[in-house]
């Protein structure tokens, strides 16, 4: 009968749970089958054990990447197509020049943080950054940033929910796969069986990228509230509540749809309470600052703006809102980003991340300023802050061993709609940062902007029938598969073998997809560039 197998599986869970209770933080005894295979097949498993870590930021709602990494030299990037949201050219700048990225720091300490109102020349001869992304410039110029345009997948879905799922399960057009790409990375590493904390997200719910059936990844929405009460609420009473709660968790029950999930997540709760209790997530503990005076100002800024007083030069300049580095609605995101950073830095977790919401700009998107600009400021400052946090406060990982990526489900229409907004489209852009990135200026790298130049292996085509309108008259056509970006990072940064990668990203097992080498995709005949030398 069907339930027999399930009972057997429950048996394993119950066992490991009891072991977990007893052993508190680590050293679980039982190893799920998936992991056993991974360990057996890879006696010298390097994945997740080479000191490298990954931090992800999911830009939910679909970032209008044409206004992030702007194809400013494309003749069709013009006022006719984007009348109210266009990022203008600086009349005094030659965008065809090759070299470093312009870095418009505030010249005088009191100048507005975002006083520069034009596209920032990236130096690849074609593309520019949204001026609100100005804090990416120092990262780029020190070789710590790659920017990749025209990223998508075959038969692009324009549904937020499906497309987010495909990005997170690394299985385009597969709604059946309910396990995530980072989950599989961690399973292949074998670490989920020895460490209570492996993959962590700080957001309202555990994202699909970290979900899977055989091990629990950890999600906290508010780390400052991660502890339990008891009745009575005394130390003794708390102990009594905990003892019996844990005892109840190890009770066997017949299998039902969600009992494994509940079992694993309760177990994770039980195992991680003590770990998080040792970390300081409080506002008072948010004392992290830049190592040098920031942005031409006289003093270093706070890295994680979680209050007005910690937001750029606001407090130092008599509460001047022009000196903010991010909008005041960004504090929740920076609290989460701070927590994710602390977790990566202070625990054995190898992957952590959060999400940044609000990118579904169907109306009143804004151009140089406005909604979309505010979101760009968050992205730019987040990357800048992470570099400084992991360089100055590094503990279990430093900036040179970290890669930070942004993901977003698709790009938006190249033509603006009647509401000064943009609708769902195809390819978008990814930002990849970290000391481990092989960016501009490192080892002969002349540009680390990819996918946004007529000189690309799959060239950007200029004009009204070009790349911006390459699909269905207003959708940016893909030149890079997001799986090639993730695959490159998971293998060459986190240490997966080629064999492991075929299980982490199934497309790597399909020769015709050409994810590694590039070529014509067997799925839809589109030319893609394959892996890029980003790490």
């Amino acid at each position, binding site marked *: *009968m069907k339930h027999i197998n399930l009972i057997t599986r429950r048996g394993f869970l119950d066992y490991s749970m009891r072991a977990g209770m007893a052993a508190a933080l680590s050293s679980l005894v039982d190893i799920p089958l998936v992991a056993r295979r991974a360990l057996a097949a890879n006696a010298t498993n390097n994945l997740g054990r080479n000191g490298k870590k990954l931090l992800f930021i999911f830009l939910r709602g679909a970032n209008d990447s044409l206004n992030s990494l702007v194809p400013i030299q494309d003749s069709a990037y013009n006022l006719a197509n984007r009348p109210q949201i266009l990022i203008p050219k600086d009349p005094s700048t030659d965008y065809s020049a090759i070299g470093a990225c312009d870095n418009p720091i505030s010249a005088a300490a009191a100048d507005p943080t975002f006083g520069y109102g034009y596209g920032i020349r990236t130096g690849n001869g074609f593309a520019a950054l949204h001026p609100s992304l100005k804090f990416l410039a120092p990262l780029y110029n020190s070789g710590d940033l790659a920017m990749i345009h025209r990223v998508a997948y075959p038969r692009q*879905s324009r549904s937020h929910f499906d497309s987010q799922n495909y990005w997170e399960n690394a299985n385009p057009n597969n709604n059946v796969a309910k396990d995530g790409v980072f989950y599989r990375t961690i399973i292949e590493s074998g670490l989920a069986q020895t460490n209570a904390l492996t993959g962590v997200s700080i957001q309202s*719910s555990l994202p699909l990228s970290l979900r899977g059936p055989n091990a629990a990844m950890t999600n906290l*929405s508010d780390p400052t509230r991660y502890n339990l009460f008891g009745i009575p609420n005394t130390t*003794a009473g708390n102990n009594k509540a905990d003892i019996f*709660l844990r005892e109840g968790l190890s009770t066997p029950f017949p299998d039902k749809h*969600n009992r494994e999930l509940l079992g694993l*997540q309760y177990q994770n*709760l039980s195992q991680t309470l003590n770990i998080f209790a040792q970390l300081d997530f409080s506002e008072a503990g948010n004392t992290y600052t830049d190592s040098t005076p920031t942005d031409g100002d006289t003093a270093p800024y706070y890295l994680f703006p979680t209050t007005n007083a910690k937001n750029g030069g606001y407090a130092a300049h008599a509460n001047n809102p022009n000196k903010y580095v991010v909008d005041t609605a960004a504090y929740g995101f920076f609290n989460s980003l701070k927590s994710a950073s602390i977790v990566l830095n202070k625990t054995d977790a190898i992957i952590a991340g959060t999400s940044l919401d609000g990118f579904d700009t169907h109306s009143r998107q804004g151009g140089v300023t406005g909604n979309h600009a505010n979101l760009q400021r968050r992205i730019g400052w987040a990357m800048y802050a992470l570099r400084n946090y992991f360089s100055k406060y590094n503990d279990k990982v430093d900036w040179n061993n970290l890669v930070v990526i942004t993901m977003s489900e698709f790009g938006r229409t190249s033509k603006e709609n*009647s509401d000064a907004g943009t609708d769902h489209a195809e390819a978008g852009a990814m930002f990849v940062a970290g000391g481990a990135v092989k960016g501009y200026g490192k080892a002969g790298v002349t540009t680390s902007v990819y996918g946004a130049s007529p000189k690309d292996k799959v060239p950007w085509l200029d004009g009204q029938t070009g790349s911006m309108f390459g699909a269905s008259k207003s959708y940016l056509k893909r030149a890079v598969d997001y799986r090639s970006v993730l695959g490159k990072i998971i293998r060459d940064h986190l240490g997966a073998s080629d064999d492991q990668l075929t299980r982490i990203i199934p497309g790597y097992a399909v020769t015709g997809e050409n994810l590694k080498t590039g070529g014509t995709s067997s799925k839809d005949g589109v030319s893609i560039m394959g892996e890029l030398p980003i790490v």
Partner: protein
Amino acid sequence: MSSNLIPKFFAVAAAILAAQCSGLQADDSAIGLSITNGVKKLQLPIVPGTDKFRILSTPSLDQAFTPETSGAIQGFEWSDLVQSGTGFYRVETISLTPADILPGVVLNRLAYGQTPDELERVRSIGGDAFIQEQLAPEGIEESLAIDKTIQPGGWQYITATGIATSADLYVYLTGVGDIFIDDLKLVEGSVAEQGTNLVKNGDFETALSTANWTVSTNLTDSALDGATVKSGASSLHIVSTSAGSSKTSSIWQTVPRVVVGKAYTLSYWFFPGATKPLADLRVRLSGGGIVSSPLSGRTRLEYGVALINDLRAWHIQRAVQSKRQLLEVLTQFLENHFVTQVTKSRDFFDRFYDDGTITDQLSTLLEFKENQKWRASLMNPACTFSNLLTISAESPAMIIYLDTVDSKGNAKNIANENYAREVLELFTMGVDNGYDQADITTLSRAWTGWSVDVLDATNEFNPLAPRSTNLITVSTNTSSSNLFGVWSFKYKSANHNTNSKTIFPSKTVPARFGAPYAGRSYELVIPARTPVAGLQDGYDVLAHLANLPFTQEFICVKLCRLLVHEGFETGYDFTDPNLSEEGQLIRTCMHAWEDNLPKGQMRKVLGAIFASDLFRSQRGAAQKVKTPLEYTVATFRALRSVNQDGTSTSEADASSIPTVLNRMGGMRLFDRAEPDGFTEAAPGWISAGTLAERVRFVQGVCMPTNMTGKADVGLNNLVNPVGLLKKKLPAADLLSAEKVANYLVDLFYPTEGRANLDIYARMVVRFLNTDDDGVTSKPLANLTVASSPYDIRIRGAVAMLLSQPRFQEQ
């Protein structure tokens, strides 16, 4: 004791059982037998719904099996001392029958969980009777205190009890307006007007002076009034020119002899003024110790002066209290399926109004109207999906939410695609289920012109009516903020794309749908129309989408995910002879939709689901995880027995719950940013962080009022589990840990089966017999029922059970 030797003649055991009659479940798994230290043990099978195990044995297989008379079962293990002789064992699992579990199933699907009273009632009348009752909510009589509204005119008596956190007493209005107040009293304890009145000049018989009341500048028009009087010679006529909140914007005094931490009761008479909107009074002792707001949440909602947390609290309170439970479950389902977002409406109104309170009130009112329309529609026996889809499309909240409000398709304008996409993907057909991008682009033009504006109240439901010209202040200012009227659906013909439109060109229903659907053309041709006649475009589309087979499939899938389990998807091959049971149920639902006229009657579809074996069996029971809303409401309901006088053993402070729901995974009711609505699937809600919040919630709710941590989820969430036990158990049983444990375990997990709950019940017994340190033995029987230690012991046990994984399920 026997020797340690293992007699080998015991080493054979078998469990072979044929299902002979209902109630017996066959299990062909081998049963583990072990013998250690003179004790033989049988490992018993773990099967859903096992109510009882029966152990049978026979000395030899040519003799009949007879029930074992010795030995004992603990959890999933039977043990006995080793006796002489050979033996064979057989185990029977006696399961709950579908009729046994149906009450538990229906109370967790058609309702927000069982209450002690309802579980008894439904077990008595049967699950099917409950289904029939709930399918016809118009036949269920209901008058809830939370629905009481106050009309302008006439004195109303108000009381409120709470704990003082300071001695300051404030009186103010939350906006512009006037009211009368008289005989304001504050006494110690929880009984109004019993004991010494502590308020100075609360009868308002002498003029206000700083010796008693301090009056802020926004209230200086207030004065004693001798015409509208409750008692004595005068009342206080409060006239407010702006919203109050603190000592700088209220009439206040520091009340002598109020002690922080003690309970006090406030009472007063209140006469609503004549201005519109109705002025909203607050009388408040301390920061939040006692807050009295004489206009009920429902009154504020009806009069458009409510804020979103008023709507949330009222909606949550209905889920806890209403007898029309299925109506509430479905209202929330529709609210979530046709999702709209209050902050998007507020951002929209920010364009027209400077006052944040007004934008909050207006955006809340749109949500409330929508919410009430779901209820009203579902009260109609013939309610169809088409009715519901139309309500959603015409709702100003939706028009704003998915950006049709400013969309233009005239001239060279590119129409906003947002609503066109989501109406197909999320509200009708399901993602990529029978449409493509070209259909979305074409469809987006059909909606152009669907907008909102301020219309005269009499024109609220006439989208062709002109904008109101009824000015609030006489001036040349005709902006929206200076118009009397109602924000309503308004068709702006100038924005409309007047071309002809062909949606789903040449498309036919795929073969997988089978008869009668397969092969049907579902092309929709909308002719070129004049700008004004173009309003019809949208209605043509709605009528067409409402009964497409794709829509039928997707909506039935969503209903089954809500009411059965999560494992339903679109895309079934309905012609497949091996179609899964889930697929078969969807097909049955679609036929209930298609074959009854008018098509798409919700009650027909629901009836098909409730009649299905998937719904009624163990495959439905406890197969889902509660959403945060379901979990919080079910917690209050599980302990809620209503007394004759209307009080109960479990009272939710619904105003505190929105914060709790946000902590449990961002479930901000009426404010979902993403148009897919909150998920029904467990992985979206269950993580270590959200489980910690769930455990903290039940612990906080179960705490007595004076315990540290109680405030975390709201001081006024009051449950009284000892009161419940006193009502439900004979007095003599209250000191029996076993009796108490069995009652609680059966109440909280009604479909699990007693045998499967044996370990839980034993755990509760040990909890009840253990001191607060969790280690020292201190039997319940030695406590006094009326004592605090007994109360704490019971509260602790209840909190422990409600924080277990099994109570996360439904």
